[in-house]
Each structure stands twice: as structure tokens, then as C-alpha cells.
């Protein structure tokens, strides 16, 4: 009777070839079921249950299982429940049977009765709890109860109190969290669906013993039941009936006095969930005690969660009392007043008494006021006046106190909006009168006068207050609102950073919050923004004021409506202004706004309003030799703006932009319909004023999608022109870096995104460049430098696209160049492997739509590593660093897993690099060491001592007392650059925090601590701080207890 035969039998049942009764009547089955051997019976039962539950009880769910058969089976199972050995299997079968839609009321009742009478869960659990079968059946038994007590099951209601009593006995003393969880669910269903008038005390008794839950799941618990799950379910039961109120309050209050924070938290959360259900009347006589305990908890709690739970509980109590009071319960009204009197009394004393943390009482007042309109009304009428009095006596009150009083008043105004409407709400007559209306003038005056306070905190508190006043319904007159906005404008330009930050954030809220008042939005857009822009354009304004105005404009542009106003205005400054400062700031602002809010660009007429005018400005100003276009940083900023826009566009729109820019800068042809006068563009040239525009040119080319083409331009000719221009110009004079890099990036991008045929035609150019470099005798000539950079960029572009043997051969030829005395190739080797070789400008990256071959980096690394290692070991000492530097650049950008695979070969090289006196090499290798130490310290574990030694060499602390500039025994110069020292110290600081064996680390401790002493007195602050940090970490290396 194995699983397979059970499955076969179930299959036959389903297709109707066998009936269940004939199955039972077969000789072995009927004999086994009636056998005197309990284990024989259990086996037969197990088989039958498996048949029934096969395929998620498919047969029972189908219409093939008729009512009578199911009834017979139910009765059979119910009658057998006394058979202890078979119980597990019986429950398994019952569970399957209950899935049938045709279970009759009578069978359900008799099953429930049988379960409560025959099946003594407790004894059963005690007998066989240790076995897995017992656990399964125990869980099933609870699930069966669950199925039986589902809502709508009229049969169980018929059993009524008997069912409840039976179930309570069954769950009594239950300890298994899975069963408890299900039991809580059942209890909740019982409370919801049964009449529990007679049984509520018993039910309460059975659940309250679990309160508060202190369950801690065992490690690796497969069921994943957490203490939070249990808490939530238990709380649901507590909050399921108002009948529990009188029973629950004493227990909850007792738990609130507990010493365990966990119990207190659970009690407070339960109070929040139950207060409204139990109703104000039941809270009645506990009001004073509740206030005392919750008040104390909200003042003293160590964590914010605890404090917030206390405040929420208070709020719920006030809500419950208010609701009961509203239904004309006089006692509740008295109790509400009593509770609120406590709040007012404490607020009045605490907010004046400076020794207590007033923030806490402010929170309490706010929690109570937020609960309901009556509570708000009471507190507003009893407190606001005295708070205003305190605020008026500002000189007699401390700054902290003053802030809290203003904050409290602000809270009142803010809360009043939810009860009496805000400035955006329609006029509704039914809304009650806001009690704060009586204090309208006073409130405005207090906030207005406090705004000019010397204390920045008071000014900020008043600003928040004014903001709330401006948003409360019918509070400020038109004149007062005007004053409010004017003040915000003035402060956004003139105040110090902290206040300005608040003012600007309030302005942002005015325009962009979801519930923004349309009048306010209008005022900001039509009045404030133009005035801010005027302030930006002030010719003789102080630098600080102008920057503040720009900063406010930039922050406000995060809103789409403002964006649409600000961007054209800034472009207009670019076009029209002769004020260099204004143009410079406008460019910076445009860069920040457009790169931070790229999503708005698509809805903005970017081509006509941005691309064309900005290019026109750049060309005009460059040709005229304007200061702005002399400065690479500004032109580059605009290049970044173009790049950000390009990345968002689809291929066709990109083509349009590229058409304009490439024609203007490559051919000197203006293709926009609006003519470019009076100056006509000329092609970009290294010597002309236009050279910096190369960044704009490359920004556009580099961010084109792979399927976007250059209209009317032959890419082959363009690439040739760009490479030739660079080489030609380098023979005459030094080519500026910006110009060279930009053109190289453009060439590389075109190569990367074009097809294989195009790339093959470039091979000849590659050969020409290699010849040029190899034949160039003087390494310091500019042609050599330019040709090397072009080679690196173009090789990168093609290797990245398809790392074939032919392409990798080009890399080998580049490696050959490392044997020259100069270090240009080595220093720029990162161009071959870096994820983003242009450092943030999006060239040959995924974001710039570059094509990448599968595992290209791994292939590159695998190709280069043996060559570089071999050349390094055979090289003369003067050029060894070149190989190390090239290798370190590769390692920096390769996945750590690949480095770890080769770590044994690499460690001697890393150590050699750290011992070198080449700062660039030191830095790159230190970065690699830092990552290795952080991510896989075990790889360096065996060489820890050597690493510690070279790192200490680098910080100048190899021997205690050695002076910093001394040359140590191994020839390492101890005074490395400050960056190297800082990074070395960082690495040294990571070591004690790694998970390397304590004994390996501990032996190093005295030496490192001694060695770091020298760095503590370094001439650079950053080094000293890092040294202090590293030393403190080593001191704390104490091992596990």
C-alpha cells in the first residue's frame, strides 16, 4: 500500500471505474481496517486517506463524490477518532473530506462532537509530540477546526456554546506556534460569527494567557512564523469584541507597568487597536492611570518606536472617549474632559518650565488634539491663549522653549485644517466654527514678530507657523498673504543657509505638493519666480545674493511648472546677457536642472527652445572670443546638457539633433531654418576659438543610439577627418586635452556602433597609427601622445564590441609600447578596461548605447595578464613600473572573482607595486588592495604581514621612531603623497575589521599601533584623522569573548 498504489486507486476513483465503497469492500482493505493490530489499522487508514487527498482531494471536490458516499465516509472517520494509533491518518483524511462541497450539516456536527469528545488533543499531543506525524496531525486538527468554523457554517452555529467550549478545551495549553496562530484565527471567527454572550469570559481567558507574546522563532525555522505574526493575530482577537473591555483594561494596565520594553510596546499597540472597540465607557475609571502611564512612557521611552506607540495609544483613547461622548454618554464626556484636563495641565506647566523636554509635551498635545474635533476644540480653547501669552513674553523664555511653543501653535493650526478645512477646500456650511479663528490676529502677529528673532531656530519655527496659517481656511487676508510671499522671497535670497533652506523648501511645497492651493501656485510662478530671476540678473548684486537666488531657482525647478518657466529664462540670459557672471551661473544652473530633471525634457520643446538657441549662443560667443567659451568647464557643462537630452531621445529625434550639431561643427554649415547671423560657423579646429565646442560635438555623437545615423554625412569621411585633424594639428603645436579627448571619444563611439565592414576599413588607419607611434623616436613629441591616445580609444571601441583574436592582437601591440621609457601608454591603459573611461561623461557605456561583446573584459584580462607578467619579470628596473601600472589599471576594472582566480600570481606584483615610489602606481594598487581587503580578505590572509609592512612603509611608520623622510631598509621612500598615505591608512584600518583569524591579526597589533604613531603627527589633517581612526580600530581588536 504505497504512495503509487494510492495514486492509482485515486485515479480509478476519479475516472469512475471503481467506487469508493467497492474499494473499502476489497478483501485486504476491509480486513486491514477491521484488524486487531492497531498498526495494521493505521496503515489501512493511511492508505484510504492518501487516496482521498490525492491531487488536492480532486475526487472529493468533483461531482463524482455524491452526498451519501461523503456522509458515509465522514461517519466512518468520525467514529474511528478514538483509535489513537490511527489519529494522524484519520485527521489527514478528514481534512480531505472537508474540502468536499457536499458535506452535510449532520456529518459536520457529528464530526465536531466526535473531535471534542474522542480526541483529547492534549493527551494526544503529550503522547506523540516528538514524532513528526504527531506534529502533522496536530496541525491538521487545528486546520479542521478552522474549516469547521468558517463563517456561514450554520452547522457549527447550531452547536453554539458546545462548539466554543469544545474548541477552547482543544486549544488549552497549546504551545506550537503554528497551532496557536491558527487557533487565534478560529477564535476571531468564533467571536465574529457566534453568539459569545455566555462564553466571552472563557474565550478571553484562553487568549489573555498568551499576552504579551514573547515568542522567539528558533534559528532556521522552516515555517517562518514570527512573533509579529502572533502579535497581530492575538491583537485581532482582543479587538474583536467590546465585551472584552472590562476584562482587558486591568491586564493592559498591568503590562504597561512591566519592566520589559517589549511587553510595554505590545500593551500600547493593543490599546491602540482596542480602545475604539471597547468604547469610552469601559475606559472610564482607568483614565487617570492610563494618562499617568502613557504620559511617562512618551516622556521616558528610549526609542522612537516606543514613544510613538505611546502617543498613538493616547490618541486612540481620546478618540474612543470622544466617540462615546458623542453618543450622549455623560460619563464618557466627563472622562474625556478629565483626560484632556491632564493634557492641558501638563502642557501649561511643562511648556513654561524649561527643565523638562518640552518637545515631548508638544507631541502629547498634538496627539490628543488630532484625535477628534471635540478634543481639538477643547485643547484649542484651553491652551492656545496661554501658549500665545508665553510666546509674547519671548524675552523671559529660553530659545528652546520659545521654539516648542511656536511649534505647538503651528501644530494646532495644521491640525485644524483636517477638521475645519484648508485654503483649498470648498465652502461647506456644515463645517463647525474653528476655535482658532478667535486667535487669528494674535497668531499671525506672533509668527510675524518672531520671524525677525536673532535665533535662527525661532525664525524657522515661525516660518513653519506662517506656512500653516497661509494654508488654513480663511485665515490670512489677501494683504497678509502678499506679505507672506514677499517675506519668503526676501528670505530666500538674503538669509543664512539654514533659514534659506527652510524657506526654499516651503516654496517648493507651495508649488508642488499634491494639495497645493492653485492661487499659491499661481503666485509663486507669476510673482516669485520672475522676481528671483530678476535677482539672478542683478548686475551690481553681491555674489552671495545672486548665488542664493540661483540656488532657489534651481531647487524650485524640481517642479514641472516652474521648470517650463525657468529653463527658457536661463537660455535667454545666455543669449542676451553680456554679464559674464550671469552667463556662467546660468550655465551651471541649466546643467543642474536639466541633468537632475531629464524627464521633463521630453514634454518641453527642447529642439527649438534649447538645442538650437544654445548652439547658436555657443557659436556666436566662441567666434567672438567671449570669456565664457574660453573656459572648458562651462562649455563642458553645456555638453553634458546636450548629452542628457540625447540619451532621452529616440533614434529619429537624435538624428535631427546630430544633423544640426555635426553640420555646424564639422562642415561649418548652419542647417536650422532660422538663419545664423551675423556670424557664420566654421569647422572646429584646435587652434581656433571653437576648439572647446568639441565637447558639445562629442556629447552628441557619443550618445547616439546604434540605429541612429548621421544624415548627409559619411561616417568614414568624418572619422578620417577627425583622426587626421588631430595628427596634423599635433605636429604644429600641442593639442589641448579637451579637444583631443572629445574627438577621440567621438571616433571611438562611431567605430563601436558601426558594422564589422566599417571597422575592417579602419584597420589600415590603425596600422598607420601604429607605424606612426613605433617610428616616433621622441616620446615627448605631441604627435606620439595624440597617436597613442587615439590608438587606445579606438582599440577599446573595437575590442569592447567584439573581443576576437585579431582585435586582441592590437592590444598586444599596445603592450609592446610599454617598453618605451615614457609612461603615457601605462598611465592611459585604463582607457582599455574602465567601465566608464570618460569618468561620468557617458562614452562607450551602456547608458550611451555602446555595443559590448560577451565577456569582453575577461577575455581582455586573460589575454593581457600572462604577457604583462612575463614582460614585467624580464624588464629593466626603469620600465618595470610601466607593466605594473598597466596591469593595475586592468585589475581595477575587472570582476573580483577573476582576480581571485589569479591571486597567487598577482600578490607579488601587488606588493611590488606598493613598494614602488611611483605615486600613481601606489594609488591604483592601494585601491585594489582596499577592495580585496573589504570583499575577500581571506585571499590576502597568507600575506597579511607583508601587506602590513609595505603599508606601514607608505605611511612612514615602518619602525617606531623612524623619521618621516627617512629611506627604509628596503629602499621605500617613506614620504609618499598625502593621497597615498590616506589610502594606505584606510587599508590598514580595514585589516582589524576583517574576518581573518584573530591569532593572525593579533600578532600584528603591537607593530601596527607603534607604526601608526608617526602618522598621527602627519602634516596633513586628513592623514592624521585616518591614522587616528586606524589606530583606534587596532586598539579595539580584542577578539571574541
Amino acid at each position, binding site marked *: 500500500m504505497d504512495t503509487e498504489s494510492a495514486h492509482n486507486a485515486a485515479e480509478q476513483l476519479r475516472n469512475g471505474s471503481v467506487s469508493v465503497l467497492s474499494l473499502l469492500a476489497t478483501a485486504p482493505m476491509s480486513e486491514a481496517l477491521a484488524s486487531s493490530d492497531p498498526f495494521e489499522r493505521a496503515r489501512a487508514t493511511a492508505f484510504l486517506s492518501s487516496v482521498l487527498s490525492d491531487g488536492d482531494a480532486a475526487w472529493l471536490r468533483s461531482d463524482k463524490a455524491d452526498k451519501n458516499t461523503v456522509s458515509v465516509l465522514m461517519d466512518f472517520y468520525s467514529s474511528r477518532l478514538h483509535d489513537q494509533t490511527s489519529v494522524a491518518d484519520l485527521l489527514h483524511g478528514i481534512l480531505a473530506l472537508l474540502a468536499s462541497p457536499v458535506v452535510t450539516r449532520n456529518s459536520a456536527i457529528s464530526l465536531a462532537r466526535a473531535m471534542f469528545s474522542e480526541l483529547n488533543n492534549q493527551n494526544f499531543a503529550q503522547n506523540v509530540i516528538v514524532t513528526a506525524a504527531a506534529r502533522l496531525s496536530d496541525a491538521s486538527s487545528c486546520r479542521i477546526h478552522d474549516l469547521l468554523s468558517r463563517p456561514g457554517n450554520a452547522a457549527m452555529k447550531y452547536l453554539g456554546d458546545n462548539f466554543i467550549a469544545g474548541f477552547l478545551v482543544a486549544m488549552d495549553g497549546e504551545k506550537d506556534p503554528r497551532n496557536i496562530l491558527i487557533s487565534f484565527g478560529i477564535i476571531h471567527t468564533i467571536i465574529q460569527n457566534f453568539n459569545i454572550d455566555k462564553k466571552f469570559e472563557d474565550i478571553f481567558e484562553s487568549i489573555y494567557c498568551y499576552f504579551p507574546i514573547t515568542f522567539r522563532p528558533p534559528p532556521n525555522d522552516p515555517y517562518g512564523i514570527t512573533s509579529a505574526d502572533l502579535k497581530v493575530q492575538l491583537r485581532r482577537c482582543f479587538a474583536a469584541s467590546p465585551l472584552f473591555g472590562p476584562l482587558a483594561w486591568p491586564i493592559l494596565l498591568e503590562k504597561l507597568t512591566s519592566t520589559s520594553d517589549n511587553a510595554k510596546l505590545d500593551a500600547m499597540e493593543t490599546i491602540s487597536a482596542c480602545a475604539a472597540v471597547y468604547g469610552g465607557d469601559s475606559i472610564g475609571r482607568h483614565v487617570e492611570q492610563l494618562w499617568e502611564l502613557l504620559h511617562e512612557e512618551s516622556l521616558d521611552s528610549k526609542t522612537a518606536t516606543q514613544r510613538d506607540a505611546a502617543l498613538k495609544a493616547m490618541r486612540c483613547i481620546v478618540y474612543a472617549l470622544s466617540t462615546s461622548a458623542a453618543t450622549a454618554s455623560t460619563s464618557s464626556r466627563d472622562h474625556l474632559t478629565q483626560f484632556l484636563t491632564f493634557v492641558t495641565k501638563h502642557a501649561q506647566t511643562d511648556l513654561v518650565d524649561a527643565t523638562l523636554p518640552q518637545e515631548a509635551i508638544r507631541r502629547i498635545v498634538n496627539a490628543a488634539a488630532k484625535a477628534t474635533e471635540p478634543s481639538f476644540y477643547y485643547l484649542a480653547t484651553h491652551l492656545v491663549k496661554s501658549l500665545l501669552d508665553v510666546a509674547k513674553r519671548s524675552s523671559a523664555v529660553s530659545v528652546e522653549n520659545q521654539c516648542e511653543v511656536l511649534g505647538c501653535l503651528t501644530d494646532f493650526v495644521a491640525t485644524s485644517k483636517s477638521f475645519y478645512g484648508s485654503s483649498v477646500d470648498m465652502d461647506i456650511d456644515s463645517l463647525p466654527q474653528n476655535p482658532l479663528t478667535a486667535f487669528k490676529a494674535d497668531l499671525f502677529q506672533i509668527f510675524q514678530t518672531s520671524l525677525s528673532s536673532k535665533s535662527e531656530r525661532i525664525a524657522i519655527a515661525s516660518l513653519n507657523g506662517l506656512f500653516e496659517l497661509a494654508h488654513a481656511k480663511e485665515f490670512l487676508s489677501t494683504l497678509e498673504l502678499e506679505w507672506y510671499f514677499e517675506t519668503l522671497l526676501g528670505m530666500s535670497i538674503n538669509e543664512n*543657509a539654514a533659514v534659506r533652506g527652510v524657506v526654499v523648501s516651503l516654496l517648493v511645497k507651495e508649488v508642488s505638493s499634491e494639495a497645493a492651493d492653485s492661487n499659491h501656485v499661481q503666485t509663486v510662478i507669476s510673482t516669485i519666480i520672475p522676481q528671483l530671476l530678476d535677482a539672478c540678473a542683478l548686475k551690481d548684486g553681491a555674489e552671495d545674493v545672486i548665488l542664493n537666488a540661483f540656488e532657489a531657482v534651481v531647487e524650485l525647478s524640481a517642479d514641472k511648472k516652474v521648470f517650463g518657466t525657468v529653463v527658457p529664462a536661463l537660455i535667454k540670459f545666455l543669449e542676451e546677457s553680456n554679464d559674464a557672471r550671469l552667463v556662467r551661473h546660468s550655465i551651471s544652473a541649466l546643467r543642474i536642472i536639466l541633468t537632475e530633471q531629464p524627464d521633463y525634457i521630453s514634454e518641453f520643446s527642447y529642439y527649438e527652445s534649447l538645442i538650437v538657441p544654445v548652439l547658436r549662443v555657443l557659436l556666436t560667443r566662441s567666434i567672438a572670443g567671449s570669456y565664457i567659451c574660453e573656459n572648458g568647464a562651462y562649455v563642458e557643462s553645456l555638453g553634458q546638457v546636450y548629452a542628457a537630452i540625447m540619451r532621452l531621445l529616440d533614434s529619429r529625434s537624435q538624428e535631427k539633433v546630430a544633423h544640426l550639431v555635426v553640420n555646424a561643427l564639422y562642415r561649418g554649415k548652419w542647417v536650422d531654418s532660422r538663419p545664423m547671423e551675423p556670424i557664420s560657423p566654421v569647422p572646429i579646429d584646435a587652434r581656433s576659438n571653437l576648439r572647446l565646442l568639441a565637447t558639445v560635438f562629442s556629447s552628441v555623437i557619443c550618445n547616439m543610439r546604434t540605429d541612429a545615423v548621421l544624415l548627409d554625412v559619411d561616417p568614414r569621411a568624418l572619422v578620417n577627418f577627425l583622426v587626421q585633424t588631430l595628427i596634423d594639428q599635433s605636429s604644429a603645436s600641442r593639442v589641448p586635452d579637451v579637444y583631443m579627448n572629445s574627438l577621440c571619444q567621438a571616433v571611438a563611439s562611431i567605430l563601436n556602433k558601426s558594422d564589422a565592414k566599417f571597422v575592417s576599413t579602419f584597420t589600415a588607419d590603425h596600422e598607420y597609427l601604429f607605424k606612426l607611434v613605433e617610428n616616433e623616436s621622441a616620446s615627448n613629441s605631441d604627435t606620439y601622445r595624440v597617436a597613442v591616445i587615439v590608438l587606445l580609444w579606438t582599440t577599446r571601441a573595437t575590442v569592447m564590441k567584439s573581443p576576437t583574436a585579431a582585435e586582441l592582437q592590437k592590444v598586444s601591440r599596445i603592450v609592446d609600447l610599454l617598453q618605451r621609457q615614457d609612461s603615457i601608454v601605462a598611465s592611459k591603459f585604463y582607457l582599455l578596461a574602465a567601465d566608464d573611461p570618460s569618468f561620468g561623461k557617458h562614452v562607450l557605456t551602456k547608458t550611451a548605447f555602446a555595443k559590448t561583446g560577451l565577456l569582453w573584459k575577461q577575455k581582455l584580462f586573460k589575454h593581457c595578464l600572462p604577457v604583462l607578467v612575463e614582460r614585467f619579470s624580464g624588464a629593466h628596473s626603469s620600465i618595470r613600473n610601466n607593466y605594473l601600472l598597466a596591469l593595475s589599471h586592468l585589475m581595477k576594472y575587472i570582476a573580483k572573482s577573476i582576480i581571485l582566480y589569479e591571486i597567487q600570481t598577482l600578490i607579488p606584483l601587488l606588493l611590488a607595486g606598493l613598494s614602488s615610489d611611483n605615486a600613481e602606481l601606489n594609488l591604483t594598487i592601494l585601491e585594489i588592495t582596499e577592495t580585496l581587503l573589504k570583499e575577500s580578505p581571506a585571499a590576502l590572509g597568507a600575506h597579511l604581514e607583508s601587506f602590513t609592512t609595505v603599508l606601514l612603509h607608505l605611511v612612514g611608520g615602518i619602525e617606531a621612531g623612524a623619521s618621516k623622510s627617512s629611506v627604509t631598509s628596503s629602499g621605500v621612500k617613506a614620504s609618499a603623497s598625502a593621497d597615498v598615505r590616506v589610502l594606505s591608512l584606510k587599508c590598514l584600518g580595514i585589516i582589524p575589521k576583517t574576518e581573518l583569524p584573530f591569532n593572525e591579526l593579533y600578532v600584528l597589533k603591537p607593530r601596527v599601533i607603534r607604526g601608526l604613531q608617526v602618522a598621527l603627527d602627519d602634516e596633513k589633517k*586628513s592623514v592624521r*584623522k585616518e591614522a*587616528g*581612526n586606524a589606530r583606534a580600530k587596532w586598539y579595539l581588536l*580584542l577578539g571574541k569573548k
Partner: protein
Amino acid sequence: MGLDNVNPTVYSVPKDAYGQSARSRLWRMSQNSDLSDTETETQAQTEAIDAGEVFDLIRNINDPEHPLTLEQLHVAQLRHITVDHENSRISVVFTPTIPHCSMATLIGLCIRVQLLRCLPARFKVDINVEEGTHQSEKSVNKQLNDKERVAAAMENSHLVEVVNQCLATTIDKIAAY
């Protein structure tokens, strides 16, 4: 054991040394990008240890009683630190939260140990309780500035453990400012 000061006043701590948002500073930096020469000038300069640097070492030490730093409790304040390069002396004055604070010596010891670990040995460091803020001001000061007593305290393994616990919170924050 009950706490000495159950409910200490907690002070807000500025976001960074300049009290400005990072964004704001970024903006200013981009404005000054053409003044890059200043960068190279500072490279060559020697930066002497100042009070701010000493404060950075101790501001994040944890109070032995609360999960709050000495800075948040105003036990340690920048204005109470002086550095005298001529005589190689540093003076740190700290303010216990209440006059009968039994933890004053322990707090002082934590400051002493942290500075021993993180300052160059050439400085003589004086650590004192702010005048008039503690009942046994003299005896606390005497203990804290007595080398022998400090050394003896550091031989008490229990005390070392408590001190290390208080200092553990400074890790990786020293260089963060």
C-alpha cells in the same frame, strides 16, 4: 543599578561643519571651479592640529549610560578645547550632565584613552571637568590627570571593557568630518 540622569537633554547636531546641505556646497564648488589654483597651494601647506580636529576625535564617544554621544549631550563642546602648539599642550574641558554624575570620571577616562590613542605623543593633554559643574570636581580632575592612576585604571579589565565599548562608536566617524 538605576541611572544617574534618567532623562538627559539631547541637543541637535549640525549636519556638517558648515551646517549647509551637501547640495548647496556642491553648487558653490561648481561656481568656484575656475579657481583651481588654490587646491595646489593647500597641497604644499602644513595643516596644524586645531581644536576642531581634537573635537572630532571625541565628539562621537558614547555616553556610558545612554545611547547618545558626548556631542549630543553637550558633555564635549568645541569651545571647551584649546590647543597650544608653543608648549605642546592640549586642554579638554568636559561638562557632566548633572552635578552628582557618578560617570564623570569614566567619561573623562574615555576621553583620555581616546586622545592617548589618536593624538601624537608630543602633546601633554589636560582633561578637566568644567568649573562648577560637578560636586567632586577636584578629585575627578586629579584622577584624570594622574598618569599612574590612569595606567592603573587601564589595568582593570572590566574598566577597559567599558571604555572600549564607549569608544567603539567613534570608529569610522573620526575621518568622516
